[in-house]
């Protein structure tokens, strides 16, 4: 057993090694200040280690090592990109770098859209109240050094401020080009009181990527967030979503992941105003050398809020699914309604599901529950379908989709949900 103090030192040493020879990006006053503070946080926390309780089920090594292992982009053949049929404003990033040529003009009524690399040069920008601020808050009670690293060094990303109801969705489309690209992307999204936005994300970001999204929702603001992490087998990635919700604000976030050697998706949500709603969901299908980790923290910091976490994982041929989820209810947050479900369907004997679903509750007048299950396809359901004449493979597919349905149901927009469902079905068909 390594003494605790020594572990802390090792982590800090690892951060120093990583930082060695890297200078913070140049920028204006606000960005420099935020980046410097983030670097200090990183030095203090150190790099994540597999000995950390927080990384119990996922080895962060490939996310933290100084070189990127080459990852060949998977050829998805004839598969159509998602959201192509949606009337949207499209912003394209290649290996995490903004590609203005390939993008639509960043014009959306009621919204102000800028690129981080431009905004960071100015001395004043609205994003300074959010950039790195929510991330810093997200460092307690658990430290998330990869997010601080991102705040310190990211130069790409989009800053969106919405004042009214955005008439069209904003789509962030990610494409890959280099097999060893190492992308850092940092988005900031602010919805003023009463504003509404649908944010779409799709595509393989880079061979390795570290993405932070900070979201600030004003009173009564509504954000629908739908993200698909493309069918890209060899890439590794870590994402952090930090969201602060004002009174009566609504956040609905859904993530679909199909493959990827390593994915760590963290979400940190604070329900700061009363009567807020946060629904966060994920569906993942993994095959073979696939390690997928959803780590979620929802903090009820005001009364009468509702939160839901719905995570479904379909795993086969040695794929590993991880879920760490926590609902923290502060003493003030009476009348909280908190729900969390994490389930996995293991299609082969060697698939694994590792979960730590937590409740931490300091208010008494609450209704909180969580459930977690793991198992194979239900034999009775399977037989029932076959007894009605449905062939084995089709019966299995139907049950897998039924299993994932509860997560897909979290998407309000039926057309988008149907598109994702088709996407999943295609994946399952191709890989049966």
């Amino acid at each position, binding site marked *: 057993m390594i003494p605790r103090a020594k572990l802390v030192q090792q982590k800090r040493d690892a951060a120093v090694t990583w930082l060695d020879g890297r200078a913070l990006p140049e920028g204006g006053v606000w960005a420099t200040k935020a980046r410097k503070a983030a670097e200090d946080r990183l030095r203090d926390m150190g790099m994540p280690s597999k000995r950390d309780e927080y990384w119990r089920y996922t080895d962060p090594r490939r996310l933290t090592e100084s070189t990127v292992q080459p990852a060949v982009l998977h050829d998805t053949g004839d598969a159509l990109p998602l959201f192509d049929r949606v009337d949207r404003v499209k912003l394209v990033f290649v290996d995490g770098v903004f590609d203005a040529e390939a993008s639509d003009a960043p014009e959306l009524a009621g919204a102000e859209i800028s690129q981080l690399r431009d905004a960071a040069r100015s001395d004043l920008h609205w994003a300074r109240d959010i950039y790195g601020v929510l991330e810093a808050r997200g460092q307690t009670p658990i430290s998330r050094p990869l997010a601080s690293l991102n705040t310190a060094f990211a130069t790409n990303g989009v800053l969106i401020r919405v004042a009214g109801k955005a008439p069209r969705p904003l789509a962030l489309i990610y494409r890959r080009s280099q097999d060893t690209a190492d992308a850092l992307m940092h988005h900031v999204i602010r919805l003023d009181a009463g504003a509404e936005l649908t944010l779409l994300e799709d595509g393989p970001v880079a061979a390795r990527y570290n993405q932070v999204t900070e979201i600030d929702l004003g009173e009564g603001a509504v954000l629908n967030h739908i993200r698909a992490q493309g069918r890209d087998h060899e890439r590794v990635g870590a994402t952090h979503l930090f969201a602060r919700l004002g009174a009566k604000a609504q956040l609905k976030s859904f993530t679909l992941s199909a493959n990827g050697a390593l994915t760590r998706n963290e979400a940190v949500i604070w329900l700061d105003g009363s009567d807020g709603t946060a629904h966060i969901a994920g569906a993942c299908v993994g095959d073979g050398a696939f390690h997928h980790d959803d780590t979620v923290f929802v903090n009820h910091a005001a009364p009468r809020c509702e939160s839901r976490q719905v995570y479904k994982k379909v795993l086969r041929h040695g794929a590993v699914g991880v879920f760490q989820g926590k609902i923290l209810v502060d003493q003030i947050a009476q009348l909280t309604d908190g729900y969390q479900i994490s389930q996995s369907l293991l299609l082969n004997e060697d698939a694994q599901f590792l979960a730590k679903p937590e409740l931490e509750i300091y208010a008494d007048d609450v209704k909180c529950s969580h459930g977690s299950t793991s198992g194979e396809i239900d*034999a*009775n*359901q399977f*037989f*029932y*379908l*076959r*007894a*009605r*004449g*449905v*062939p*084995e493979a*089709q*019966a299995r597919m*139907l*049950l897998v*989709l*039924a*299993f*994932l*349905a*509860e997560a897909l149901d979290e998407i309000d927009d039926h057309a988008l949900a149907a598109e994702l469902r088709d996407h999943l079905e295609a994946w399952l068909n191709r890989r049966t």
Partner: protein
Amino acid sequence: MLNINNLHAELEEDSEVKILKGFSLTINPGEVHAIMGPNGSGKSTLSYVLSGRDGYAVTEGGATLEGVDLLEMEPEERAASGLFLAFQYPVEIPGVGNMTFLRTAVNAQRKARGEAELSAGEFLKVVRAKANELQIDADMLKRPVNVGFSGGEKKRNEILQMAMLEPKMCILDETDSGLDVDAMKLVSDGVNALRDAGRSFLVITHYQRLLNHIKPDFVHIMSDGRIIKSGGPELALEVEENGYTDLLAEAAA
């Protein structure tokens, strides 16, 4: 139609547990046979072995449907060749809509038989009409398969599936269990509407009352894995009157 010859079956995981011990029965097209018997006589196992559920091993004998060996087929192949089992406990499948389920089943069977799939429009028209007869409302069709259905609704849903799939050989496993008088009548009417010269039924039941509604041509008493007595509808009335004890004693003698 269905020919079962000296069928022996035991539990796959425990060969000590022998359930069917030389069961034989021949059902001709258009006939309705009823099997009655006390609990544990092997009635439900018979339906599972015929429809191909995992967990049972056939050690002797066989079963054919229109001369084709049933036991060699996968469950879905048996279904496509015309065998239908109305489950005693219809299975709940959260996440799968009832309509999706029905359409998938109908088209899978049509495809297996080399028939064209029904278009969504045609399918909907047929389902609506048949559902209407069974008093199954639009809401029930939309909900996930059997989830939150009452006992009666589940059984009506089984009959709707039967009506849609148009099988040749229908096995009804304790279809009357959990039904009140009205629901039983509704379900029986549904079954009777499907009776014709080309379709046969095997009605498994513990009580005679279902047979008041679905009139059998033949009644068989099953005990300890085989038929111990066969007769006409009067045999069911005899059971109703006297219970199984005398019949069992007679068979043992």
